[in-house]
């Protein structure tokens, strides 16, 4: 059930209040319980309220919508989608959302500078996303050129399946 104080979050704690000899049961979410002094700091700490993800989600809720909404040019994720989940879509999101992300990262991490180890240069040749689609297209062109129409039809079907998966994962 929903919290009986904010009517927004899921209630996870139940309280019995005694007022003027009358017992009253209330279901509250942890934030409300904490703000009303019903949770001790220890209980709040161990309920995970102090972790970064929780804080991130609260910051995101407060940060207001981007007008107009912006999207990542690489993966298509919109800022409003990110606000709902707290999850970015690809490494490119950090670049395309940098203006909105910067103050957010600063508030939750208390820093905007990496001081840990640097990345290593990979020595191995890497696969590229969509590699399979690229290879299929190349094979398809070759098949058409060689007039291998049956093979071309099979390859076209497989490409369609790949592309429909892409559409599904984008919505």
């Amino acid at each position: 059930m929903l919290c009986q104080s904010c009517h927004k979050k899921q209630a996870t704690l139940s309280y019995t209040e005694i007022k003027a000899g009358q017992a009253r049961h209330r279901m509250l979410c942890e934030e409300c319980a904490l703000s009303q002094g019903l949770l001790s700091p220890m209980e709040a700490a161990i309920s995970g309220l102090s972790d970064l993800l929780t804080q991130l989600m609260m910051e995101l809720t407060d940060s207001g919508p981007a007008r107009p909404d912006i999207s990542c040019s690489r993966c298509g994720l919109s800022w409003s989608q990110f606000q709902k989940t707290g999850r970015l879509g690809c490494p490119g999101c950090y670049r395309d959302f940098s203006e909105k992300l910067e103050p957010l990262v600063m508030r939750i991490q208390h820093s905007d500078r990496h001081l840990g180890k640097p990345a290593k240069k990979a020595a191995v040749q890497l696969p590229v996303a969509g590699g399979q689609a690229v290879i299929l297209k190349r094979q398809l062109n070759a098949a058409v050129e060689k007039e291998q129409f049956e093979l071309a039809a099979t390859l076209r079907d497989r490409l369609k399946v790949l592309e429909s998966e892409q559409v599904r994962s984008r919505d």
Partner: protein
Amino acid sequence: MNPDDAGIIGLLQQPAGWTNAAGREAETILSSRVRLARNLQNYNFPGRCRESERREILDFSKDQALKVNYLNGASFFSLDGITKLGRRALEERRMTSSGPAEQLQAGVLISPEQNVSLMINEEDHLRLQSIFPGLDLLEAFRVADQVDDQLQERMEVAFSADRGFLTVCPSNLGTGLRASVLMHLPALAMSEKMDGLMEDISQKGIVARGAYGEGSRVKANLFQFSNRTSLGKSELEIVEEVEQAARSLQSEENKQRDDLWSRSRPELEDRVFRARAILSQARVLSMEEFLSLWSAVRLGISLGLVTIPKLADLNRMLISMQPAHLQFACDRTLDATQEEIERADRVRAMFS
């Protein structure tokens, strides 16, 4: 048992490395764990990949990881290939997290000693974990760091000079490091000092949470402490901060134990011996009751009141008495009552 889970049985029969109770300070600190989050530069994050791309990531990362130290000879489990029960057993071992379970093309590699694991296509492309018994965060970090270096020689990871390793959630940004210790604090949890201590360590940037039990109900007095932020500090600084917090909590816990021993020894002994009596005689035992008695007996072992079972056996029971492990151990599906009877039988056997 479901044939899909055949591969898991062997894993479950071996004790998890972190339960050894061999490390330093094992009486209060059960394990030290380091986790590094990494993503491949050339792919969208798992939640925004096509299934075929996730397949590529899984196959590629698995092949590469099997060539690096600690993970050569690792067992691989496809998380969509095993049953829900199998996945639960891996969570009970703390080898995987209870992430998005329905996500397809996810898997985990587990080293032969079960101290290093690599989750693929969970929230991030790669989540490398290294876990050691007792207080040994530095060693856990050294191992994870070495595996990470070798992995990075084989794959280009998403990284920016300013922001470090790029992660799905900005809360893991930078080092991608989460260092945590699992602590048993029965004496502190009874005392009034606990609230103040939790506030102190929270101010030092350490997050506390109950290791078992949801919300604000901590079971077995088991707490997990980890770093709150992952950016703006070096890996060693982060590890050092968590280690220091663990040491100070440990010394507070020991002080509290001494205090209890000198002030209220009869009550303390009563608590320990009653718990041992129930565990060695019970015929039906819920997980909840087991955990709370487990805590008292564990305290009794470190006070020298209980000699059987040993600390390591008790640590192992924390895993082996959980629901999925019990079902695998007796090789059949158990309803709630059968599970509690089975647990009682197995716990009794450990006390004789």
